[in-house]
């Protein structure tokens, strides 16, 4: 149950960050409704952010594995 809790927490964090970035980028001046252009931008931005998150995950995990194998001092961050 703790693990499920952690997965939900993780997904929530991703959506939160994604919203912040994409709202910032795609809705510079919030009007009385979301324009078609803003929505298109938002959907693209969302996909881009999730892809970016995947790229970072892969790169980061493979890097810390490589470091663990070569016995380098563990990164604090």
């Amino acid at each position, binding site marked *: 149950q703790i693990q499920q809790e952690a997965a939900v927490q993780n997904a929530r964090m991703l959506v939160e960050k994604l919203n912040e970035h994409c*709202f910032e980028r795609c*809705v510079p*001046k919030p009007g009385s409704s979301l324009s078609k252009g803003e929505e298109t931008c938002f959907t693209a931005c*969302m996909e881009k952010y999730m892809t970016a998150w995947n790229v970072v995950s892969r790169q980061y995990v493979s890097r810390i594995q490589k470091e663990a194998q070569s016995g380098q001092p563990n990164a604090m961050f």
Partner: protein
Amino acid sequence: AELQQFVVNESQKSRIQQSIHSLTDICFRKCITSKISSGKLDRYEEPCMQNCVDRFMDANYVVLKELEKMRS
């Protein structure tokens, strides 16, 4: 069960408070851009703050719809 309900309610309330702080942060940055000369929100700033909350929720809704599409 009552205690559990209490914990659920409190953590939901705390999540709502958190969202309000975060939205105020985001929308203040977006809507209050000119020199601050009065403590009131002017006729441009107030509707901008309201629209900012609503558009953020709309955008959030777009994300949820897309996530659902992906899952199915």
